[in-house]
């Protein structure tokens, strides 16, 4: 059986795990191409208008896989750690896709229920039961698949901690990233904040990463810091955030500002993103308090590349001016 993984949303976080697990239980795994004009346009057409752009793109990716696979992998990722959630939209995603499946002629959906909110050890059983119910895999084989999946995910995470980005580590199509062009003079260290499925989706963010690298920015992303370190750094709020991925974002900006790891921050948020609309306030406050320039960049399906280029150029110019005026910001190992 061929199963399709949409190259969208949590693909950018868990692909190595999912792919290895599905392959280990004997499935052929296929991913959709990188987001392109058609994929996004298809998604925008079927998705509810008020949804955020990455979820709209997800619909498009499901359509892109429609005729190539026997089943679509759309897990319900409720929570990846105790007392936390992902985002409401991930909780409802399988139902949202199922609601249009018939109309669009989508293949059957594989929707394991992944929830570590109450008890992290549940995760294992959720996957074992999923493998048993869907494919008749016995427990030992499922456990073995789980172990190799964990290993693959760990390698991915080690790679990230080593300074590489999901773009370097996840399979790419030919539309690969441009070669780095080192600019003359001191480079600007720019912290790129936001959800990985936005930041690393070159089509959704109008090649933001490539643009920044072209002008010689040295990019710092949250994925470079270990997940636990990010979580620990995000605890200085009066009430703990209950969205894991927002907590990572908060942790990242807290670390960057405290340790002066960046000259400036570009915060990419999707229009109508619920969680970001709130933590945006805390992030902007943090940057202000620590006097680190921050540019919030809102993206949706209508964002144009021209406007983006102007804005990031203005921002990086400002950073350079600031650096010349104040001398070098002390570097931190």
């Amino acid at each position, binding site marked *: 059986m061929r199963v399709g993984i949409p190259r969208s949303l949590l693909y950018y976080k868990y692909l190595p795990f999912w792919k290895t697990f599905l392959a280990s239980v004997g499935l052929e795994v296929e991913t959709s191409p990188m987001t392109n004009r058609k994929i996004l346009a298809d998604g925008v057409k079927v*998705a509810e208008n*008020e*949804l955020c752009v990455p979820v709209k793109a997800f619909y498009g990716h499901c359509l892109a896989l429609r005729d190539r696979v026997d089943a679509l992998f759309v897990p319900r990722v409720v929570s990846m750690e105790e007392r936390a*959630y992902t*985002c409401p939209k991930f909780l409802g995603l399988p139902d949202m896709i199922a609601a249009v499946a018939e109309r669009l002629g989508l293949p059957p959906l594989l929707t394991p*229920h992944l929830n570590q909110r109450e008890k992290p050890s549940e995760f294992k059983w959720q996957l074992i039961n999923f493998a048993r119910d869907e494919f008749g895999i016995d427990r030992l084989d499922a456990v073995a698949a789980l172990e190799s999946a964990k290993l693959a995910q760990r390698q991915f995470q080690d790679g990230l901690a080593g300074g590489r980005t999901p773009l370097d580590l996840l399979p790419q199509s030919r539309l690969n990233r441009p070669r780095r062009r080192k600019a003359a003079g001191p480079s600007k260290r720019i912290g790129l904040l936001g959800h990985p499925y936005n930041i690393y989706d070159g089509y959704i963010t109008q090649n933001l990463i490539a643009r920044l690298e072209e002008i010689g920015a040295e990019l710092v992303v949250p994925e470079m810091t270990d997940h636990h370190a990010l979580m620990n750094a995000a605890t200085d709020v009066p009430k703990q*955030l209950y969205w894991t991925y927002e907590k990572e974002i908060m942790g990242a900006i807290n670390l960057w500002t405290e340790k002066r790891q960046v000259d400036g921050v570009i915060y990419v948020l999707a229009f109508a993103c619920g969680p970001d*609309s709130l933590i945006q306030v*805390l992030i902007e406050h943090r940057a202000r308090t620590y006097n680190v320039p921050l540019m919030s960049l809102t993206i949706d399906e209508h964002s144009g590349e021209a406007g983006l280029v102007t804005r990031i150029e203005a921002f990086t110019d400002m950073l350079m001016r600031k650096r010349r005026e104040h001398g070098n910001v002390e570097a931190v190992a």
Partner: protein
Amino acid sequence: MKISAPHMGHLHLMLADLFQRMGVEYVKPPPTTTKTLQIGAKVSPEFACLPLKINLGNFIEALEAGADSLVMAGGHGPCRFGYYGIVEDRILRDLGYEFDFYMLEPFNDGAWKFYKLFESLSPGLSIRSLWKILKVSFSKGRAFDRLYKRALQIRACEINRGDTSRALKKAEAVLTAAYSPNEIEEAAAESMAILEAVERDPDRQVLKVGIVGEFYLLLEPFSNFGLEEFLGHMGVYLERSVWVTDWIAPNRNNIIYGYPKKLVKQKAAPYLNHNVGGEGQETVGSVVLFAERGFDGVIQLLPFGCMPENIATSILPKVQQYHDIPVLTLAFDEQSGRAGVITRVEAFLDLLSARRMKRNAGVAAPLEPAAAAMSERM
């Protein structure tokens, strides 16, 4: 201490009662107006959901009116509401306001914490007296909710337009004045009698419409341009899926709505099989329930960009198809205008009337009060 909390429909009546019993001075924020919303929207993140923007407007107006302490409800996700308070507190402080901020986390989050919050508002308050206060105050809240629910049904058949709303005002006043448990019991009966005395046309053919959606939008008439009253005047019988006391009651038996949360979730399960925060699942389940009960249609109200409701909206076409019930989805933000909303609602009522007519085909269809009311307006 001068405490204040954001408006939400008639919540202020309950809060006034509660704080009076606790011996805390309550500053009722000035009534929510367009200006309130403008003030709030100006200081809010652009795509924060509408309730947060109105909350902030209420808070600012309350602080200007002399409040020095603010209280806000909490929660633990997955939706935004549980984190509203933290962000509101941050925004207000960045604006330079000074105040004490209290976040009321749900009871099942820890009874001790819950008690401690009230105790910090009213030092020396014992657990026993808090429990008693909450019980009495809550019973008064229930009585209010019963009135409002009944008004939604009576208004559709009132003979003199506006009678129900006028009676409701009187009934409200009677109930507000009641203090002891006995008084509350008597006032509940008396106020209901005032409402029941509204002159009605028992033979009027009315459309039956269910109101579902996000709870703030359903509970705060300001946010939906008084849609329920408008529909009532058009001769539409209404039931609504969200009530403030149902929401507060930890058991979620939904006494006012009439359908326990568990049942509603069961009804939603074939279409939306997981909690998605807010009222997402309840919205889907309630559409099914209203369809099963033969309602003519359902109106879904939500703040623009509301995550749980957007999920529900994405799924509702399938529910409509399987249960053959029309659903009108209305999203609101600070740019919404009353005229646009009313136009869409009127078109929807036309559709419902036409469907009803078709269903009754063969029988000489009685004049739809909705259609009549509309032509009268034009």
